[in-house]
C-alpha cells in the first residue's frame, strides 16, 4: 500500500469488475441517471452516500469499462486489511485503495495515499460519511473531500446518490434483496474562492442530498 503504484486492470480485476457489474444488474437492474454531469473518462472524484458494501459495486457498474479500469474505491484499512483474504478481495480483486484511520507514518496519511492515486491520473470513489450509515439521515462529511479538492482543484468532484442500496443489502446482511436501484450523478461541486472547509463540506452534502429522487422516503 505504501508504495502505491497503479496499473490499469489485471485480468482478475477485469473479470471481477465485469462479473460484479453483471450481478449488480441482474439483482438491482441498476441504471445511471446523469443529471448535471455526463459520462466521461476525465479524472474525477465520485463521492456518494454509503449504506452498504454494494454501493461501490453499483456505482462502478454505472461507469464504462474504460472508466472502471482507472477508478478506485477508497476503503478503510481497519476493515479490509484485517485478514489476508479481505485484503486480497479489496486490492487484488476490487482494486480498491485502502486508507487507515489510525495512521502513524507520514506515507500512511490518507490524504497522501489518495493524492498519489490522483497523481497517476486515476479517479477515486469516496464515501465522505466515513462509514456505512445505519441512520436515516446523511451523516456530516469528513474533511477528506475538501482537502483533496484544495490540493488538486482540476479534478472534478461528482456527487452520486445511490438509491435503495440500504434496503438491498443493509449493513450486517450478506444476502441481497433484489430491488431496483438507480445511481444519480449530479453536477460537479468545487470549492468556491475563500470558501471555508466546514461551509464547503455542508454544501457538498446538501448537493448530494438534493439528488435523492425520492426525498419523501425515509428508507
Amino acid at each position: 500500500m505504501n508504495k502505491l503504484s497503479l496499473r490499469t486492470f489485471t485480468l482478475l480485476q477485469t473479470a471481477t469488475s465485469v462479473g460484479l457489474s453483471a450481478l449488480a444488474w441482474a439483482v438491482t437492474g441498476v441504471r445511471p441517471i446523469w443529471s448535471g454531469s455526463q459520462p466521461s473518462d476525465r479524472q474525477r472524484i465520485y463521492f456518494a452516500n454509503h449504506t452498504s458494501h454494494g454501493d461501490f459495486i453499483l456505482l462502478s457498474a454505472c461507469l464504462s469499462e474504460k472508466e472502471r479500469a482507472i477508478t478506485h474505491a477508497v476503503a478503510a484499512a481497519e476493515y479490509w486489511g484485517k485478514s489476508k483474504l479481505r485484503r486480497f478481495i479489496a486490492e487484488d480483486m476490487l482494486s480498491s485503495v485502502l486508507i487507515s484511520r489510525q495512521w502513524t507514518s507520514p506515507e500512511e496519511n490518507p490524504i497522501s495515499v489518495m493524492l498519489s492515486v490522483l497523481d497517476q491520473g486515476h479517479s477515486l470513489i469516496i464515501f465522505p460519511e466515513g462509514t456505512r450509515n445505519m441512520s436515516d439521515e446523511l451523516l456530516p462529511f469528513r474533511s477528506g473531500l475538501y482537502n483533496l479538492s484544495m490540493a488538486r482543484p482540476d479534478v472534478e468532484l461528482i456527487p452520486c446518490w445511490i438509491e435503495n442500496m440500504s434496503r438491498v443489502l443493509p449493513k450486517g446482511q450478506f444476502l441481497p434483496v433484489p430491488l431496483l436501484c438507480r445511481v444519480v450523478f449530479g453536477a460537479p461541486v468545487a470549492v468556491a474562492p475563500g470558501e471555508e472547509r466546514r461551509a464547503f463540506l455542508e454544501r457538498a452534502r446538501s448537493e448530494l442530498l438534493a439528488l435523492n429522487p425520492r426525498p419523501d422516503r425515509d428508507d
Partner: protein
Amino acid sequence: MRHEISILIIGLFVVLSTASATAALLSARAPKPLSATLVNLTQRINAWWVMVALMAVAFFFGRYGMTILFALISFAALREFVTLTHSRRSDHWVLLGMFGIVIPFQYWLVWTAWYGLFVIFIPVYCFLLMPAITALHGDTERFLERVSAQQWAIMISVYCVSHVPALLTLNVPGFEGRNLLLVAFLIIVVQGSDVLQYIFGKLFGKHRFSPTVSPSKTWEGLIGGLVASSLLGTLLSFITPFSPLQASAVAFVACTMGFLGGLVASAIKRDQGVKDWGHLIEGHGGMLDRTDSLVFAAPIFFHIVRYFWTV
C-alpha cells in the same frame, strides 16, 4: 396443435409488420422533431416484436418454457412492486423469503400440478406466516402498511401471474395436450385488448373514464377495446375448447378484468407518486405496466375454464 400455433405466429407477424409499417409511415409524414406520442408508439411496437419473439421461444419449450418464463416475470414484477413500497431494515428476511422461497415454491406447485396447495399456499400460509415473522422481529412501526404491501406484492406478482402457466395443468376433456393454446388465447386476447383500448382511446377518446386515477383511460377506449377484443376472442375460438359465442363471452370477462387490473395498478402508482413501475420494457415502462391486465384476468380465466370445462 402445430397447425394452430403456426396460424397464430403468422397472424402476429402480419399484425406487427402492419403496425411497424404504419408507425414508419406516420413518422415519415409527421413534422420533425417527432411528437412524444409517435416516438413512444415506435418504441412500443419494437418492444412488442421482442416480447412476441420471447413468448414464441417459451412456447417452443412448452411446459418448461412457460413455467420458467412466468417465474421470471413474477421476479421482475415483484421487484418493481417491492421497490415502490415502504419497507424497513427488519423486513430483510421476509423480503428475501418472498423472492427466494415464495416464487420458486409457487412455481414448483404449478409444475407438479398440486392444485390443492397451489391455490392456498400464498393466500393462507404466506399471508399468515409473513406478518408473524415481521411481528417476531419486534419492529411495529407502520406495521400494517408494511405487511399489507408485502401481501399485495406477492398476491399480484406471484399468485396471480402463476395462474397463467397453471392453465397447462387443467384437464379439459377432448382438449388434451393442447393447453398451451389456452395460454395463447388468454395472452393474445388480454394484451390485444390493451392495445385495442390504446388505439380506440387515441383515435376517439374524449370522455375520461376516471380522471382521478388514470388520465389515459377513456370511455371510448374502454368500449371500443372491449367490443373489439370480444370479437378477437370469437375469431380465436378455433384454438380453444369454447364455441364462438362462449369464446367471446370468456374474452369479454377476461378483458374487463384486465381493464380493472390496469385501473388498480394506476391507483397504486398514483398513490406512490410514480408514472411507471419501472423501465424494463422500452416505451411501455416496467414489467407490471405490461402485465397489470394479465394479472387480474389470469385467475378469473383459470377458474372459469376449470369450473365450466374440466371434469
